Each structure stands twice: as structure tokens, then as C-alpha cells.
């Protein structure tokens, strides 16, 4: 063992554990962040399950035979068994495909179950010839790309399974149709589409997330190292525009962060691609054919949203770093922005913002750093208005932060302002008093 290693290690541990700058982001922030994150995921799962259980299902009986009535009675009887399932029945709507949107709107639901013509006849034949089976067709609306989006449709599959167990195995199966952007796509399982969208909508947000989490560390370090290495004073007395220093730091951080993000995304994409290669063939859905690939304008807007957000994060990081005495202090200060970046981002992977309660939705919209993530999902479903409004909001926020940063750089505060962690009091001019 190296001589003195143990003593030095103990000193280091003491120093770190007694430093509030380390304690705050390392212990306190996760203590707050993970329970909140757990709460968000828990809420999402609970909401999805409740939605599935409380599902309102429109059953369209286009068969009107004995077995279709038995099936509807079975569904209605589930309420008595504790299922919070509301069944609305309609009869003889042919062809249903033309009335799907009207019915969904009329009953304010997302799922329609059609009992097609010949349903009763097929079941009757099934008892003599098991190769003949009856089917019901489930129309589901694809609304978003949240992880729990389609628990509702799988719940209907479970109901069919229960019916089969009561009567005969494999007597009934379901066919799936998905309503995407107002159009009925037959043979498309909403779960498969949702799964693929998840895949598509994870790579993009992950890149966004990596970029906006990388960049602040770099910007903060580049600012703090000027103080730590005692080069800032010299720099500020040179004939150079103070804003050139600010922008130089912002831009170099963006470039380095972008390189990092591309490398990480490539690695992430490769890994995810390898995982996806082993998924069942039923996931082979052509998203472009379904109109679920972002448009060029969508990508441009996402780029713009990302750019303004990164500039705001960087400017905020540089401001925070200016209050630190060294790199470690700066990184600790910038660490306080991370919950604002990660919480909404991770929440948005699990949740569809459109289905959230208004208050929750407003909180997510109010956090500027959540907008690239919102945008990356919105462009997939063609909601460019949300993206545009987000860009306007984040731009306004960025202008405010940039104004504050430029003010800080233009005055002596860039040199003298400090945050003293003991009591978290801002202290000014300490270094200038050392003469």
C-alpha cells in the first residue's frame, strides 16, 4: 500500500462529506428527486390502470344474434364483478369505419368494439368445427406515445380471454384497428405502433437530454476554470468585448456538447437497435406509411427548440459558475439545474402530456428545459403549434437569462460575486478585500 494513502483518503472523505457544495447535489437532491420521480411513475401507472379499469367501451352490435347478446351481457355483467367498465351499445352501424370518429366523439371514449355480422353464426359453427372462430374488431385511438398508452387495449384482450374461459377455448379472438390522425388503419395493433413510436421517440429525446445535460457542465467548468486558474482577471483587462467572452464560452460548450451527444446517441441507438432486432415480427409496422414520421418542418422546429433551450441552459450555467470559486463549486451549483432537466424529461418518456391534469401540464410547460422533450414527441404526431409556442416561450426565457448574463459580465460582479454556502448567503467583494 502506498505510504500515507490511508491518511490522505480519510482527509479527502472528510473534506468531501463536510462540503455542502458536494452534499447538496450528491445527497439532498437525489433524496428529493427520486421520491418525486417514483411518484411520477407511480402516478402514471395508477392513472393508466384506472383508465383501463374505468374504460368506457362502445360496443357496436352489427350481428344482433343470440351470441352477440350473450357477449354484451357478459361485458355488462363485469360491472357487477367489480370492473369499472361502462358499456354503451349501438346496433347496426354499417359500414362502421365511416362512423368510427363520430361515435368516439359522441361517447368521448377511445375504444370501440365491433361485433361483426356473422358473429353468432360462427360461434354456433365453432362447437361443431373448432376451426371456425368468431372475432370482434377493436378500434383504438392512438393519442400519444406514452409507455402506458395501450394498457386499455390490452385490457379488452383480457376480457375476451375471460369470455373464452367461460364458454370454450379460442372461441373468440380480436382484430385490431388503430385510428391515427383521424384515419382508421386496419390490421394495425395500437400496441405495436405505440411500441415503435416509443423506440423512435426515445432515441430523439435521449439525444436532447444528453445535449442539455452535457452542455451546462462544460460551460460551467470553462467559466470556473478561469477563476480557479486565476486567468479571469487578466482576461477582463484585455481589450476584448466582455460579451465575446460570454458567447465564446456558450458556443464552445454547445460544440463540445454536440459532439458528445452525437457520440453517445450513436452508441445508444446502436445498442437499442440490437435490442429491437430481436422483437417479434408483428412490430414490423411502417411508421412512414402511417404518417407517424416527423416532417422536415417538424425537425427544423425541434432543432430550433433545442437550440434556444441549450442557449438558456448554458447562459444559466455560466451565471451560476460565475458565483463559484472553482470548478468543483461550479459543477455543484450547476447540479441544482439538473432536477429541472431530468424530472420533466423522464416524466415525459412515461407520460403523454395531453392526458395530464391541467396543473401538472402547466408545471411541465413552465419549465423551459422540458420543451425540447415535448417538441420531440409533438413533431411525431404533427402537433407543430405546441412546438412553436414552446419555442416562443423558451426564447423569451433565454432572452431574460442572456440579459442577466450580459449584465453580469459587464460589471465587476463577474469577479467579485460569490455564493457562500454556509447559510447560502451571497457574498461580494471578498477577493478584492485581500489586498
Amino acid at each position: 500500500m502506498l505510504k500515507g494513502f490511508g491518511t490522505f483518503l480519510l482527509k479527502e472523505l472528510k473534506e468531501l462529506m463536510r462540503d455542502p457544495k458536494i452534499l447538496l447535489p450528491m445527497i439532498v437532491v437525489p433524496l428529493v428527486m427520486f421520491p418525486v420521480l417514483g411518484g411520477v411513475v407511480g402516478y402514471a401507472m395508477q392513472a393508466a390502470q384506472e383508465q383501463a379499469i374505468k374504460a368506457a367501451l362502445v360496443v357496436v352490435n352489427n350481428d344482433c344474434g343470440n351470441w352477440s347478446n350473450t357477449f354484451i351481457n357478459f361485458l355488462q355483467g363485469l360491472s357487477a364483478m367489480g370492473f369499472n367498465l361502462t358499456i354503451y351499445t349501438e346496433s347496426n352501424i354499417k359500414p362502421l369505419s365511416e362512423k368510427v370518429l363520430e361515435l368516439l366523439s359522441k361517447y368521448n371514449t377511445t375504444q370501440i368494439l365491433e361485433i361483426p355480422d356473422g358473429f353468432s353464426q360462427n360461434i354456433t359453427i365453432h362447437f361443431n368445427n373448432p376451426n371456425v372462430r368468431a372475432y370482434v374488431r377493436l378500434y383504438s385511438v392512438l393519442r400519444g406515445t406514452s409507455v402506458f398508452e395501450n394498457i386499455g387495449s390490452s385490457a379488452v384482450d383480457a376480457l375476451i380471454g375471460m369470455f373464452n374461459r367461460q364458454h370454450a377455448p379460442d372461441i373468440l379472438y380480436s382484430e385490431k384497428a388503430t385510428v391515427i390522425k383521424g384515419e382508421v388503419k386496419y390490421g394495425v395493433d395500437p400496441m405495436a405502433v405505440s411500441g415503435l413510436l416509443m423506440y423512435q421517440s426515445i432515441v430523439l429525446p435521449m439525444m436532447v437530454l444528453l445535449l442539455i445535460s452535457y452542455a451546462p457542465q462544460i460551460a460551467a467548468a470553462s467559466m470556473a476554470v478561469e477563476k480557479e486558474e486565476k486567468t479571469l482577471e487578466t482576461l477582463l483587462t484585455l481589450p476584448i468585448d466582455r460579451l465575446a467572452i460570454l458567447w465564446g464560452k456558450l458556443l464552445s460548450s454547445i460544440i463540445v456538447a454536440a459532439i458528445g451527444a452525437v457520440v453517445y446517441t450513436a452508441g445508444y441507438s446502436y445498442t437499442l437497435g440490437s435490442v429491437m432486432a430481436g422483437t417479434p415480427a408483428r412490430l414490423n409496422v411502417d411508421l412512414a406509411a402511417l404518417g407517424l414520421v416527423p416532417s422536415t418542418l417538424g425537425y427544423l422546429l425541434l432543432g430550433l427548440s433545442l437550440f434556444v433551450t441549450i442557449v438558456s441552459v448554458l447562459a444559466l450555467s455560466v451565471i451560476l459558475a460565475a458565483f463559484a470559486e472553482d470548478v468543483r463549486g461550479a459543477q455543484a451549483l450547476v447540479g441544482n439545474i439538473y432536477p429541472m432537466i431530468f424530472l420533466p424529461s423522464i416524466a415525459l418518456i412515461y407520460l403523454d402530456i395531453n392526458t395530464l391534469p391541467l396543473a401538472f401540464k402547466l408545471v411541465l410547460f413552465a419549465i423551459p428545459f422540458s420543451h425540447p422533450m415535448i417538441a420531440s414527441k409533438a413533431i411525431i404526431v404533427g402537433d407543430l403549434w405546441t412546438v412553436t409556442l414552446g419555442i416562443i416561450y423558451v426564447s423569451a426565457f433565454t432572452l431574460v437569462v442572456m440579459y442577466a448574463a450580459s449584465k453580469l459580465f459587464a460589471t465587476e460582479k463577474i469577479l467579485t460575486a460569490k455564493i457562500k454556502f454556509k447559510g447560502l448567503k451571497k457574498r461580494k467583494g471578498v477577493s478584492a478585500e485581500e489586498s
Partner: protein
Amino acid sequence: MEASNVVKVFGSVHALDGLSFKVKPGEIYGLIGPNGAGKTTALRVVSTLLLPTAGTVKVFGLDVVEKAAEVRRIISYLPEEAGAYRYLSGWEYLEFMAKFSAKSKDEVRAMVAEAAEICGLGERLKDKTKTYSKGMKRRLLVARALMAKPKLAILDEPTSGLDVIHSYHVREIIKKYVREHGVTVLLSSHNMLEVEHLCDRVALINKGRLVAEGSPQELKEKYGCSNLEEVFAKVVKIA
């Protein structure tokens, strides 16, 4: 360079409390005083880093508050604990700094060559500055401060932390440069020997105020002391 009734307040601390002094063109003027006297604060105000709470400072007729950008074009400031960019070589560092003052590539080359001669680091200029000793780094920084031939060089403890040999070398650099290029120098120092050796005139400051001023010889005669150290002790005690 002229400072008139300069006050600088940090919270409840009066770092400068009506400090006034004048530096003539081409002279080396030293600020001396105990720790916390306000030397560094005064130099930071002159170099446009800090704004005076009251009073005025003019550098060759330019007000350091109103004409800060113009003042920065004619001064060069060497902070007491200045560092160089760790991952740049000495050459790269000098080149980076020269580009802010030079108007052409030729001028940059000339400045860097001048700085290389001043610091005397030779081949070591090709190495990254993180590999330099404290003395080498200080010589590089002094060379950086002088290479642009500023009208006013502001040097805070130019030999801070250096051993005798390195201190001697840096002092010789400053003296030679002033003699050859007519640069005006405002410096602060704790080292009385250095001040006596280098400065044409000195100001003794205490608690943010000027308590004595004159050439080293004048001060020694006035206070009946054999060296500046005694003058310093006597004046500060009186003050």
C-alpha cells in the same frame, strides 16, 4: 495616471478611503503597505476591474469608468496570483494574448518574439504551461504583460512567490523594459528591497489611504531611516 479621492466600499469595509496619487509618464511607481491596506483594490480599480464607489481615476486622460474599453487598450495588468491556461503551450498562450493587442499577424509574431526574449524560456515555450514551475510561469506572465508595450503596466506583486534568482531576473526585465520602451509602471509589492531597487517613487498606503509619498531616498531622509523597511514600519505605526 491620476487617482483622486478614490473610495471603494465592499459591504461595510472601506477598502479605499479617499486614496489620491499621481504617476508621471515613464516612471516606476510603487504602492506599498501592509496586508489589507488596499493595494490590490487600487490596482484593480486602475485596471478597470472594479468600479470606484467615489472619486476618479484617469489613465493618460481617460476615465477608467467612462472610457473603460479605451483604457484597456493602453494598459496591461498582471494580477498577483495570475495563472496561464494549463493546456496551452507558452507560445500558444503568448500568441493568444498578443492577438488582442496586435493589428496584424506580423505584429503578433513580433510581440511573441519580444515576449520570448523577455521571459528567456527558450525551448520550454513549446511545452504546455501546466508543466512550468512557478518561476517560469511568472516570467511568462511578466513577458505577456510587457510584450504589447502598454502605455501603463500595472503589476501586482510582480515577484510574488519567486525565489531570489527568479525575483532578480523579473526585476531586471521590468527595469530594462521601462528604460528601453518608456513604459509607465504602477506596481505593488511587499518586498522593500524590490521597491527600493525598482521604483522611482513610492506611495505608502494604510487602511485605504496614502500616508507617505516620495522617492525611496526622500522617504528615508524624511523619516531618518536607513532603509524603506524602517520607513514603512515607522509610518504605518504613526498612521
